[in-house]
């Protein structure tokens, strides 16, 4: 049992160490790919009857701008996010867990269409995941 636990820990440790030298921004494909992801994401939202209503009356040009900036920023790219905090932006929307999960699926679709490899998708999602607690049921 002890050996079992320690081999599991070794795997976790190896997993933790296995980072590349490249920034996630470069792995993603930089500015162009991020712009493509955000464009695809907006299209996905437009065609989703459950998520689209949240964006009624939103300034989509600003949304595009700020989301590009944010993705660039969290991926260690050459940008600083200048938008509002996730808590401020999503306050009062009462986003449900189901709708949040659905939005993540749309983002995954957007990344897949932009040609982002699945392993790189996972890394970007890992950086966005901690933000969920600021958005759900607020």
């Amino acid at each position: 049992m002890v050996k079992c636990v320690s081999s599991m820990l070794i795997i976790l440790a190896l997993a933790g160490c296995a980072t590349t030298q490249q920034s996630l921004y470069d792995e993603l494909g930089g500015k162009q790919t991020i712009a493509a992801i955000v464009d695809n994401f907006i299209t996905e939202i437009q065609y989703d009857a459950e998520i689209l209503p949240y964006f009624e009356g939103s300034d989509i040009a600003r949304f595009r701008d700020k989301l590009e900036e944010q993705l660039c920023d969290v991926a260690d790219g050459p940008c600083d996010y200048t938008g509002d905090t996730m808590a401020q932006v999503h306050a009062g929307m009462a986003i449900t867990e189901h709708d949040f999960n659905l939005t993540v699926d749309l983002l995954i679709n957007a990344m897949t269409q932009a040609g982002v490899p699945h392993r790189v998708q996972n890394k970007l999602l890992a950086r966005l995941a901690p933000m969920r607690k600021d958005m759900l049921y607020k």
Partner: protein
Amino acid sequence: MRGTYCAVLALLTLSQNVIADEGKLIGTAGLNQIEGAGGGGLVPWATLSGYDSQEQTSLNVFATNVNVDDYRLQVLGSSVSLYDRVEVSAARHTFDLTSLGGEIRQNIYGAKVRLYGDVVYSQYPQLSAGVQYKDLQDDTIANALGSTDSSGLDYYLSATKVHLGAAAGYNLVWNVTARMTKANQLGLLGFGHATQDNHELMMEGSVGILFNRHLAVGAEYRQKPDNLGLGEDDWWDVFVTYIPSKSFNVTLAWAELGSIAGAQGQDGLYLSIGGQLW
């Protein structure tokens, strides 16, 4: 010693992302373990079976077949998961003594409550507590071996976490379960013994890598008591799970179950299919 078998290492390779249709991690929600609870193959996890979110319910059914040298265990079961908070399960074991002849049947009723967290999103692992009530239908062999009861209660606490992209970009899932039990071979050989009739703490664990949305590979380990003094062994397995959609999953594993009722070296194939009806 038996821990050396726990060769979890043959796992790492490919990848993709793993968020299911409903946003839950495919594979962590979809399986039912051998006693009916949401989990892996041998081990219950903190995740509830089914892909329901906090606004939804789900109903799951599964069938599992474990074929080892001298025995075959067939399991049929079902579980309901409510608002990603409570899971209720029922499973029937039919244990064929393929070498000796005869069968042992057992019914298992389970309940599990999610205490904390979300397996993907929360900072700490998702935490759940569960019980499994086991009711042996054929207790002749259990009595002959000196077990004290033909029914028993297991209690467990499970912690499960998915680390997005943690294994060189692949998603990694681990689970640790602490179980209080006096079941002999899951209860198929009764509960307790005149010389050892207390619940004992047993540790169980799983690790898995999600190669893509549809394929998980991993290993599990389950410590077991030896109340009957027959050299009951810990169990382990390595598994491959294919999840074509959130409504269907199939798992193939190699299970090493050690000594069972005096018959040594019981190992063989574990095959399980499951599905979500809603």
